[in-house]
């Protein structure tokens, strides 16, 4: 039986290991083993995006991802995005400048998704943005500001 296992992976650039039970999800392990709270379970169905985590360069729903599958992967969370404590990523800066959040609960998910969107598409249109991010929900409904933030971030990342 293998109801538990040790997984070794890279977490925000640091090699780590964790002993996980088979039923545990990625978001639970980040919270319970590593005190990382930025990806958080909300709808529990992969529909809201609050639990977004980047695994091997791709965003996934941390609440639907078995932690046992982490072995050998590279994991990035919102806590690992800013280059330094006093310096933010351009996407984070853009979200602040555009006022693209209210309660902040969904914000890490939107930011990580935006980071990945801009990696795929340097200059997304409004329609691209709406489609790409429509699987992330913001109950405060900062949607107009979020679209503005993504465009601002695109400009910043292009060095504009």
């Amino acid at each position, binding site marked *: 039986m293998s109801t538990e296992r040790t997984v070794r992976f890279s977490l925000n650039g640091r090699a780590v290991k964790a002993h996980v039970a088979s*039923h545990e999800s990625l978001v639970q392990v980040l*919270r319970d083993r590593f005190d*990382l*709270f*930025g*990806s*958080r379970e*909300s*709808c*529990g*169905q992969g*529909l*809201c995006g*609050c639990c977004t985590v980047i695994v091997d360069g791709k965003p996934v729903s941390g609440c639907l991802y078995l932690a046992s599958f982490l072995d050998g992967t590279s994991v990035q*969370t*919102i*806590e690992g*995005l*800013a280059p330094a404590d006093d310096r*933010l990523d351009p996407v*984070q800066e853009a*979200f*602040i*400048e555009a*006022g693209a*959040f*209210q*309660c*902040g*609960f*969904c*914000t*890490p998910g939107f*930011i990580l998704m935006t980071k990945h969107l801009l990696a795929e598409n340097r200059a997304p249109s409004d329609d691209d*943005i*709406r*489609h790409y*991010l*429509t*699987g*992330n*929900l*913001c*109950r*405060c*409904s*900062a*949607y*107009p*500001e*979020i*679209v*503005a933030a993504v465009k601002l971030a695109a400009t910043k990342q292009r060095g504009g």
Partner: protein
Amino acid sequence: MASQTLTTPAMPAGQVGRSIPRLEAAAKVTGRAEYVHNMSLPGMLHGKIFRSVIPHGKIKHLDLDAARAVEGVFLVAAIDDIRKVIAHPYYGPAFHDQPILADGKVRYAGEPVAVVLADEAHIAEEAAGLISAEYEELPGVYDEVEAHGAQVFVHDELKPAATFPDLAHLLGRRDTNVALDFQLRRGDADAAFAAAEHVFEHHFRTQPTMHTPLEPFVSIADASGGSLTLHTASQNPSFVRIEIARLLGWPENRVRVKVPYLGGGFGGKLYIKLEALVTALSLIARRPVKISLTMQEQFFMVMRHAATIRIKSGVDKSGRITARSCEVWWNGGAYADIGPRVTQKAGFTAAGPYDIDNVELNSYAVYTNRTPAGALRGFGAPQTCWAYETHTDMIAAKLGIDQLAFRRMNLLHDGRPQATGTILRDAAIDKVLDRVAERMNWGTPLERGTGRIRRGRGIAIGFKGITAPTTSVAMINLYADGSCGLYIGTVDMGQGSDTCMAQIAAEVLNLDAESIKVIHPDTDVTPYDMGTLGSRSTFHMGTAVRLAALDANQKIAALAEELGVPPNSNLPFSELLRRKYRMQAGNIIGIGSFIPGYDKPDQETGQSANVTPFWGVGGSGAEVEIDIETGEFKVTKLVNVADVGAAINPKLLAAQLSGAAIMQLGFTTSENMLYRDGQLTNGSFADYKIPCLLDMPAVFINEFVESRQHDGPFGAKGAGESTTIAVSPAIGNAIADAIGVRLMDLPLTAEAIHGAILAAGIGGDDEH
């Protein structure tokens, strides 16, 4: 998309009127902002709730043994266990009607019956799944109008809380589901109807909806050494402390309630939710206890009232409304929560923002066997506005008068009495309506189309009173190095209160708002505040903060005088403290408290000289495109305008107005808690659809106008709910404009539109 300010804020140069980013912005974009969701305490147990699967019945037998036998289970508790630590385990803000766990009877499907505590959440969940209950099922009542006269009673007798003197007459009343019957009588409606040239009567319905904050309900209780600390996602920590202290029979100072940021609230996280349950469990277990609901469980906690509204108007030859009568039934669910207050406050304004001499209103809070209903961003105003603004539009259409002109003809203006008799003041109803019309280009004809796609546009305007009388107290602590802490009980759940309050304090103290630290609600530290609800914080707490800052300034002046410093010296207070205490020491503490005036409405007539501290005003305009073959439709343009008094932080305010309007867009077109035989059938995000990015109207405009509230802080008033009020009728009116038929019930769906098109026999439905 656009979001603009109509007028440049007429603010003194300085902190108020600046669009600074929210103070906690960096914490939120790095995922480090603190929520109860994140918290754990040493030795903490996790609770999982076992819920009723039937809507109404007596509990014959509850089998907890299998759950108790699960390895890792610490405790399984039902109401008898709760009674060992709380003798009378019933709570509620208006009625003490809600048991901490079901007490012999269940009154809605989803009601908590028992709880499992375990070291690990998944063990508690597993064990809760092993609990079984046997019920003697009772007939249920689900519809608010049926429940009004039904012979099935949700409660045997009414138990009003002592805190609301106007409910005292209901004490001990039996054999009724009506928890409150509010009535208002102004003029002589019967005579006015008899004399009217035209009389119109319509019936409307609104559906039950849920707040769905993305941080689901969560509370932690830590009872030890004869005191209790609650960490809870609550919008009103002061109320929680008072109510928990009452339940325990303890003085307030043994109960400490702490609230960090909230991941959304919207009126859901008010009064007692999980707090009484975790308190009891922590006292029994003698360990900290956390209960975190799932998104699915939230639908069993609280919802927005569904309502049935009958509205009737008399109109004279010139098109003036001379009489209006409204009857509103509010579906309160199984426990009253704050429903009676919704019933009363929404009753004040149920006739709409019109100047009508003869008004008759009846508003009933009705118990049913559904999830309890409470406050949700508007306190009933969006429901009543759906009725009166659809009704108003229908009258204008029938009389052949332009919708805007008809509203202008009847609009309520400053200086005139509102239905309660209170004289309207500082309410920019006319300006808001003008601005909506302007942004809708109302004077320019709309190309409505003749083929498969039809277009239409509509406007609507509404208003609301504010819960009164309520108190806020603020404290400012100036530290000896010149920095400043602001101690307030207002909960920042995303609306930006930390930032706005810091701006108000900074304006008075002549500091940078960004340099002020806002100390989050902690009832051991922060002074009393009634709650973060009902658009009250900017006005009430904002005033208290301003007064606290003025008090601090007076104390600085007194200190300067004591030290012999000339009044115009401009020495910073840190230097004064250094001179007084001869080192970096001491504090200057400013206190401000505020309770606005209020005149309790007459029990028989609802008349009051001062029924609300201020008026919230919101107007909306919508354009829609409808595919008349299928009823599928798009809101192509949405304009929302609110009267905000004055903007403390225009950018945060614009975002709040925009967010409220989108939320109401969801309540208008997609969100609907569906019940079958008292069972909720769509309680998850897979089936209860809140708006997403693709639902955004292509043109989306949010604006505010400034009326300068005479007694508000720097002219400001609250605005968190204003743009929820008129969205639904604006869209409904646009649909009617496009296809010539009316929908009377929310939500407005493609299928309902298609049904209306079929019923009206409008052409173009295929070529049949």
